[in-house]
């Protein structure tokens, strides 16, 4: 353990040029934050591939965490709302369960015990109030009301954490403009080939004859993944999502809120941003019976998203239906993760491994969340062979342990794979009627009338606060 030498001068292998390949939302979001944080010391070039133009359509939704990304860029959610690019979402509607999933845990902690144990106690006693009755955000979404989040922590309105539904075209343009203002050089061209030498990308050869070289390449080319593929990095399909196809439609209006509906063999997910509503059907098609509709999606993940001098982000790194959040959430999370330990030199082996380790933990939580939805569907459709078989076939012992533990006791298992807030899990499970079978002993030790009084008061408070919110049209 000898102290290592610090050098203040740039060594020959310092990272000074980054090439982002792909100019969709993924590419621009990446380039914008990299430039914001690293320019002018690092040059950022973005190559917009000509084919991807038409893929810009529709809506992407995200969790409240996007505000952290925006803050780093000097943006705010409310600026995007005022610019008619974004619509705040207080809760996601699951109509099959008649449930609204808010992004903040319902209820309040009482005597240091998580709230859902109290709701369970009343449920056990015959009370039928749905769990979202204890969430102001969910009640507001149910009644189509809105109020911005309050900065005053003692206000009920401080619980109004909103996700965003973004008009992809408007948002991409806004982020691209910002990226260009921060010094990103954009090149629009066609990719011809990728030169590889000793498992490193040497250059990206464009139709114009130009060769893009860089110290670090970001593969933002979506499912084509043409840069990371050149290094032959394995892609591992997720077995529980095999055979799903995707059909995306968008309409020039904006009426519906974010909702997730079950079908016989999948889901229909509708999101609605200013000026556009997008519907995505993720379903199993009977190919043998000649059904040719939809694009088959091979959902899964890249085993080492950072390999050599390439980092795959967005759908080049992993693809999986996220229900309450779309790919852009995972893009911002990847960029923030990269920037937290951005390598200033190419001897980055440990940093690379740590990035991949954390990405894998994130993937585990994404996989768990997807398979949780398979489980919820199996609860909703007890007579469906398709859903029952699908859940049976899910090979995820840790998820099954966590669900069994929750079902037994309401205890949430600790895990480092927590890329999605724990409150979403608890809320979704209770919202789908999965009430724990036993009561927390601390809650059992309290008099039932006291619990009833507390929870009734809470619901009244939320009811009154909801009525005070502005009705949206």
């Amino acid at each position, binding site marked *: 353990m000898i102290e290592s030498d610090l050098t203040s001068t740039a060594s020959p292998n310092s990272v000074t040029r980054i090439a982002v390949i792909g100019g969709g939302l993924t590419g621009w979001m990446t380039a914008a934050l990299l430039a914001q944080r690293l320019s002018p010391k690092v040059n950022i070039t973005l190559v917009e591939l000509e084919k991807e133009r038409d893929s810009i359509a529709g809506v992407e939704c995200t969790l409240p965490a996007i505000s952290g990304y925006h803050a780093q860029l000097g943006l705010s959610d409310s600026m995007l709302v005022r610019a008619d690019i974004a619509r705040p979402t207080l809760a996601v509607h699951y109509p099959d369960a008649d449930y609204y999933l808010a992004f903040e845990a319902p209820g309040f902690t009482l005597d*240091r015990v998580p709230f859902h144990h109290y709701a369970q106690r009343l449920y056990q006693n015959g009370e039928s109030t749905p769990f979202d009755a204890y969430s102001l955000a969910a009640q507001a979404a149910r009644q189509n009301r809105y109020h911005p989040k309050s900065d005053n922590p003692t206000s009920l309105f401080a619980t109004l954490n909103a996700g965003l539904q973004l008009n992809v075209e408007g948002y991409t343009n806004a982020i691209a403009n910002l990226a260009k203002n921060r010094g990103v050089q954009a090149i629009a061209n066609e990719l011809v080939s990728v030169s590889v030498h000793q498992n490193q990308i040497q250059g990206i050869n464009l139709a114009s004859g130009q060769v893009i070289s860089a110290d670090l390449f970001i593969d933002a080319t979506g499912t084509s993944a043409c840069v990371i593929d050149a290094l032959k990095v394995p892609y591992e399909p997720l077995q529980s999502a095999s055979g799903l196809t995707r059909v995306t439609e968008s309409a020039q209006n904006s009426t519906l809120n974010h909702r997730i509906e079950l079908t016989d063999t999948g889901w229909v997910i509708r999101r609605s941003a200013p000026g556009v509503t997008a519907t995505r059907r993720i379903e199993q098609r009977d190919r043998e019976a000649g059904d040719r509709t939809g694009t088959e999606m091979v959902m899964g993940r890249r085993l080492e998203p950072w390999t050599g001098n390439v980092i795959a982000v967005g759908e080049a790194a992993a693809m999986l239906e996220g229900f309450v959040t779309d790919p852009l959430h995972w893009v911002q999370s990847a960029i923030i993760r990269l920037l937290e330990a*951005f390598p200033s030199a190419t001897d980055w082996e440990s940093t690379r491994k*740590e990035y991949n380790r954390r990405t894998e933990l994130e993937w585990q939580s994404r996989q768990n969340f997807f398979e949780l939805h398979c489980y919820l569907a199996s609860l909703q459709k007890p007579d469906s062979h398709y859903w029952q078989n699908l859940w049976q076939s899910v090979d995820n012992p840790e998820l099954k342990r966590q669900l069994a533990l929750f079902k037994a006791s309401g205890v949430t298992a600790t895990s480092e794979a927590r890329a999605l807030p724990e409150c979403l899990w608890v809320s979704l499970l209770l919202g789908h009627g999965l009430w724990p079978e036993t009561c927390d002993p601390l809650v059992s030790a309290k008099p039932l009338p006291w619990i009833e009084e507390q929870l009734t008061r809470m619901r009244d408070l939320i009811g009154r606060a909801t009525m005070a919110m502005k009705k949206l049209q």
Partner: protein
Amino acid sequence: MASSPPFHWIIVGGGTAGWMTAAAFSARFGAPGWRITLIESDAVGTVGVGEATVPHLRYFNEVLGIDEQEFMRATQATYKLGIEFIDWGQQGERYIHPFGVYGEPHQNVGFFHSWLRARALGDTTPLEAYAPGAVLARHQRFHYPGSSSPDSPSENPSSFNNSSASNKPSAFNRKYSYAFHMDASRYAAFLREYSEARAVVRREGKIVQVERHPDSGDISAVVLDTGERIEGDGFIDCSGFRALLSGDALATPYTDWSHWLPCDRAVAIPSTTKDTPRPYTRAFAHSAGWRWQIPLQHRTGNGLVYCSDYLSAEQATAQLLESIEGEPLAEPNHLRFTTGVRTETWSHNSIAIGLSAGFLEPLESTSIYLIQAAIMNLIECFPRGSSSEVALLRGEFNQRMKLEYERVRDFLILHYTATRRDDSPFWQRMRRLEKPDSLERKIALFREQGQVEDYTLGMFLEPSWLAVYQGQGILPRRWHPSVDPTNDRALLASLQTLRTEIKQWAEQQPSHQKALLDLGAQSDKALWPPAAMSLYGVFS
């Protein structure tokens, strides 16, 4: 162990672990139907570990509704702002691992990177000069952290990018936390009184036999030396190193970590306090281990931890006596241990808490923390429902405790292996030690670019790792590029301003001695700040 009231808990052993468990159970499950019996014998001594604590203990006391000043009087406690490590990285070196954080982040990058860059520019100020808690400790001063100061200006939201705004001296008291040095035997006695007032029944006696159910293997009863047989539904093994239930009766396997942490003996001697008590623990490395010094109000705790391959008990005792500052107050107390943890601390219907569960040397004052973590996890995973439900809760509890022990273990090994000491066979061995992969990976990552491995479970997070890495001479090859754009002079000037302001702020705080008197005199009103399950405080 299918359990709902009436349910009878038997706590075996009444040291710190036993009475903390009894107190927590009696405070949290006040309802009729729960019975708690604690069996202890005055003939069996307690080890009395954990005189030095971590801030989490304040949370434990807060949950129990304990008056902090009353607690301090009862346990002769002093305040603790961190631990000073002396002679670890190299003989002659010292640093404080504070309960708190360092400096201000810059461009979303931790302060440590600004410090690294300043160091490369020739500024040799140690990192601790930027931790208000460490500076307060160095000045032998103490005040509550928090924002209670009436003249502190309110945070201005518009100053988001203006780091100087948050560097106002009024912000320094938000960046640290505190714990106590206390007399653990008195704490046990204090909690005994608390528990007995809440219907815990204490039984005097030595356990001579443990009965198990012939089919399930669960423990059904214990038999005392008086011949009395006490039946129970659930058992808590707080019998210390003896591990009467988890070791003797259930034979739960023990994972031996002594190849990583080879110290296996300790000798302890209390002494009179020579000067006014320091508001921090001291840990001196010596040729075959280390020595603690813990200042209480009425005495000083001293102990020498060593590896018996290199030092005899006589040598250790002599070495300890020579180092003691005041007059010895008791005969040397010799302890033997094997570092490690039981594979399952909850087995059948018996949960091992404290030394019966595992042993990690008290280098970072983790003994009481690990007791507390076990109690809190047990309360959350409290047995209920059918046997299959209990099995799930037990699995979760064991998984959580395993992770707690492993993460503390890695942090302790770091202290021994991040060293340039070469002056004795012990240190030569530690320098060449083959570390656990989980630690090897963390160190390699840090050396590359100053990144501390990201995790959320476990008690030692980024500031603690930085303290030890930097304090013991492990530095990264480079810093984060986000701190590069600031020009050299501006960077150096901003660091100088920051440490000067911290020093000036610290000098205005009361001395530790005065704080003990004055804060203690205000016991009519709960003025102490809220507690958190964090080493770094609720504010930072």
